């Protein structure tokens, strides 16, 4: 309240070790959540959690990037950095949601897709592209919530949605501020300057029309405050679902197309 929060401060909040993760939201937003595993191609990557639960009594499919809450869990979940198999599991669950006409709710919270040997051998780029392609044409409503760090294609892979909600102190960017600084200034220590330049806060993204709604957060971390945020998310989810469930499958796809079609900044040249 006293001091204005900078974009770099927000980066640190979004990455904070005690920041709530996808499973914390899932536990409080959905009833009867059941996690479903595996890509049916030989793997079960744990950086993305998928499953079915009920939201206000309606079955929904949940696809969520999950950071670990303990060191042990972080190792298991590869610090929330998906390998291609996570996206393939997500794609399987998207198709299943379509078959059973369930809305899809996705949660973004990742430093990015994992840049490893295995990931490249197993087509990280293809997996991300296919995940976006699948969401682009899916015949059910898709709502995306950016809850923590949303970095690069690894985040966007599950972000091609009809509605994008974003927590006030989450970030969403093309690359980490460190990565940005090392590309632009050849100096990753200029991360603070980068963060303040990159337009990665919820406010910036609303101004750029990349997201639809900001979910207000509380300054202090407490159980009560978390439940206030949950209530605000519920309110927005209600509104979004009500609006989207009126649309036909064709209209839903068109809605998504129009949303992303408009994004771009360029100036019209004078025609001579």
């Amino acid at each position, binding site marked *: 309240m006293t001091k204005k929060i900078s974009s770099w401060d927000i980066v640190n909040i979004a990455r904070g070790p005690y920041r709530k993760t996808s499973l914390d939201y899932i536990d409080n937003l959905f009833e009867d959540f059941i996690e479903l595993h595996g890509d049916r191609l030989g793997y079960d990557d744990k950086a993305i959690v998928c499953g079915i639960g009920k939201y206000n009594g309606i079955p929904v499919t949940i696809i969520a990037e999950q950071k670990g809450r303990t060191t042990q869990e972080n190792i298991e979940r590869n610090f929330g950095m998906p390998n291609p198999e996570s996206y393939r599991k997500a794609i399987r669950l998207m198709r299943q949601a379509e078959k059973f006409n369930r809305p899809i709710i996705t949660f973004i919270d990742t430093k990015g897709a994992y840049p490893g040997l295995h990931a*490249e051998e197993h087509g990280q780029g293809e997996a991300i592209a296919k995940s976006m*392609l699948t969401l682009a044409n899916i015949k059910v409503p898709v709502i995306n919530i950016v809850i923590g760090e949303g970095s690069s294609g690894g985040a966007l892979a599950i972000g091609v949605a009809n509605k994008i909600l974003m927590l006030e102190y989450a970030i969403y960017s093309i690359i980490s501020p460190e990565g940005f600084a090392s*590309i632009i200034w050849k100096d990753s220590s200029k991360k603070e300057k980068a963060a303040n*330049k990159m337009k*990665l806060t919820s406010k910036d993204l609303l101004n750029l029309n990349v997201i639809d709604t900001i979910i207000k957060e509380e300054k202090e971390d407490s159980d009560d405050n978390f439940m206030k945020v949950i209530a605000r998310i519920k309110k927005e989810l209600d509104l979004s679902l009500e609006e989207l469930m009126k649309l036909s499958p064709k209209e839903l*796809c068109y809605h998504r*197309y129009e949303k*992303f079609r408009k*994004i771009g900044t360029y100036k019209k040249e004078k025609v001579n």
Partner: protein
Amino acid sequence: MTIESIKKREYPSSNKKSNIDIPKGKWLKCPKCKEIIYRPTFVKSLNICPYCNYYFRITCKDRLKLIIDDGTFKEFKLNIETTNPLELSEYEAKLKKEKEKTGLDEATLSGIGKINDNKVVIAIIDSNFFMGSMGSVLGEYVTFSIEESIKRKLPLIIISASGGARMQEGIISLMQMAKTTCAIAKHNEEGLLYISVLTDPTYGGVTASFASLGDIIIAEPGAMIGFAGPNVIKQTIGEELPPGFQTSEFQLKHGFIDLIVKRKEMKETITKLIELHKGSGIIDKKN
């Protein structure tokens, strides 16, 4: 994020009016085998080293000549210009330098042309300009090309050569991945043919969007293709990468491309593929 280690490769010519018929200087050195190449021989061999078969990167104009029938190309002109959404002075300066270096306004050339008499929509990305990175203007041209291909029910050919999304335009560049992918999704629904050609280098946000979504994916021999750049991976895993990592041959072995086609056989192969798709597709999806 991928660019540093990919940059090293050289271009045969970076003259403003680059043209395969008018070489600049008589000799050049192959960056791979270090042999000195006599330029006329080199031009005849389609900018390929006659000693070691190294494929030099070529400009979009040269690429167009290798694929499209002479005199049939009509360029898309959208009259849009790259802006500086993050207000980075470094971006302004770099854009200016890239424009002077290449004589291009952006890293792309797209339009309608014929390939052995088959009308197609073609979009080419030029790694000569800003490492072919995808910002708003490139994203718009690619999306427009996909939409024109839908509107005119023509096969779509996209030839990629890109370091990935353009960092300097921030999140808006990232969103071009979603925008182009949504357009490809629509293209799929129409039952139209999309041939994606991957050339050196294809990385990052381009690999992770339209470039990986062709009905048929072709690569030139020895091209570097991947998602994360080799340096980033090396840093992450803390060890040397195996030889041949992220080459076209690696991608073929791992099942991510359909075939590798030599530069001189590219036009004939694409022609055959288009002809094999004639009379198919274009499913009526009314209702």
